């Protein structure tokens, strides 16, 4: 296996502590391109991976009833200017387990590269998963990121996912997630993306509230400037009694950027309720003037508002 030094350096650059991510107590998987650099299981968490025919197949299993305190780290990256990384990821949280999964995606050098991940996530009865995916990109804008996920949230289970791409150029981002939520389960998806230059952003997230009392929230925050484009599609279907869903989209547009928000809410059960709100526009003038009244110049005030929204 290649050594971990490049990943450790990259983690340091983006402000992460390599020892926390890659240390002996941390369940993790590290892959550069299609090379597996490190893989470690810990009691209660099994991490398996293989690389063949240009695809990494990874599997994370959290054992039934285990409450995993230390985050499980998945580190994917390309440290060359050109390349492709294709990841097939299966995550299973067995009944009554809980864990936090951090996915660090580092493409700081990439000039013409693709990162494609297809994830299948199963959060079984009474289990809980926090999944945080953070991307760190370079300045070239030549990367294409294509995350796909299908998530099954079992009865009374909880799923909280945060996707963040606010450092470096986005390049091309095409997210497509579908989450099925069973009875009395909760799914909360948050995506935060900051595009500029000619970045192209497409985010499609769908939550199907299939079980009685299921809850779902899709929250999207996008800022776009220069000639970036963004299309945000938030879909929530309320299919059972007592299901409650909400789609909350906020986008800030500057310069010549073009963005759209398309909320789709559908209810197939008379006792389900789904709501949505979307706000698209330039920076709110009152927010801007409030910060300027504290002495911030307009550019700093706009930056603070956008950074706050994407925090």
């Amino acid at each position: 296996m290649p050594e971990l030094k490049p990943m450790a350096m990259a983690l340091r650059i983006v402000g992460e502590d390599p020892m926390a991510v890659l240390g002996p107590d941390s369940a993790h998987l590290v892959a550069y391109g299609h090379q597996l650099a490190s893989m470690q299981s810990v009691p209660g968490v099994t991490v398996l991976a293989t690389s063949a025919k240009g695809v990494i197949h990874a599997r994370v299993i959290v054992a039934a009833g285990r409450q995993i305190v230390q985050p499980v780290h998945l580190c994917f990256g390309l440290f060359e200017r050109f390349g492709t990384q294709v990841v097939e990821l299966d995550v299973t949280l067995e009944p009554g387990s809980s864990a936090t999964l951090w996915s660090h995606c580092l493409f700081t050098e990439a000039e013409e590269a693709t990162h494609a991940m297809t994830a299948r996530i199963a959060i079984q009865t009474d289990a809980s998963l926090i999944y945080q995916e953070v991307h760190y990109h370079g300045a070239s804008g030549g990367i294409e990121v294509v995350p796909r996920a299908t998530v099954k949230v079992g009865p009374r289970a909880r799923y909280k996912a945060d996707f963040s791409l606010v450092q470096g150029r986005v390049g091309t981002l095409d997210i497509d997630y579908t989450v099925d939520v069973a009875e009395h389960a909760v799914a909360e998806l948050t995506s935060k993306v900051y595009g500029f230059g000619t970045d192209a952003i497409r985010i499609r997230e769908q939550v199907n509230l299939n079980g009685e009392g299921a809850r779902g929230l899709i929250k999207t925050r996008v800022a776009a400037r220069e000639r970036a484009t963004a299309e945000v599609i938030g879909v929530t279907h309320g299919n059972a009694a007592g299901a409650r869903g909400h789609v909350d989209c906020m986008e800030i547009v500057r310069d010549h950027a073009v963005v759209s928000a398309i909320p789709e809410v559908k209810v197939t059960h008379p006792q389900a309720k789904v709501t949505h709100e979307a706000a698209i526009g330039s920076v709110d003038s009152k927010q801007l003037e409030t910060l300027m009244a504290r002495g911030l110049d307009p550019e700093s005030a706009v930056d603070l508002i956008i950074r706050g929204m994407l925090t």
Partner: protein
Amino acid sequence: MNSPAQPAAEQEKRASDADATSGAPTAGGLLELRGIGLRLGAKEVLCGLNLAVAQGEIHVLLGANGSGKSSLAHLIMGCDGYAPSTGDILFEGRCINAMPIHERARLGITLAWQEPARFEGISVRAYLALGAGAGDPGHHLEAVGLAPSEYLHRAVDKTLSGGERKRIELASAIALRPRLAILDEPSAGIDLLSMDDIVRLIGAIRAAGMTVLLITHQEELALHADRASQLCGGRIVASGAPADVAENYRARRCRRCDGETCEHA
């Protein structure tokens, strides 16, 4: 430094005097508004307004709904769309009409908004630290009746109630240690119990030597000031000792200011 309340006609006469254009004493004047007019669309909101706020004083501006109080606050701060159509805004004798908000803030002017904006992802701690060195942010929260341990880590977003957000706005304005703090309706949206907090805050502001223009429709607050003025129909119609102005305001208040009631009272 207090002067008795002056009726409108007398105010206007005084306004015509070269060294008394403010309708109030100008000695040590920090802020002076001379002949200010403001149009918002077709409406003339302020008309020939004169006002002076002396260095170090707590000056209460009393006025009914619609009298132009908040518009005046926005005009002094330099908000978009609130440039005076006539007259000058003088800060330490310097005309700041063309100065953008952040430059006015750097001169030491700030505004605590009547309905403060909310911000996702900005903590109360960070908000209180905006601008110049703000000292201990917890201290500023305590001054407005909020427990630092409960609030410093929270975001200044919609999870705060209106009253909490309002108190944080006041704390933020004071944390800047501005030379002139404009407090726009500080008691609006805050429960009665918290009126005491505001009065305590006024005391703390006074002790810190800051100058305050406190805008309100509640004459009780005027009694804690050094001087007061009454705004009606876009003009200052009375100015002087707080008790006198408050009494004048009570006697001649219009419920919805149309600019006529006081002149005919």
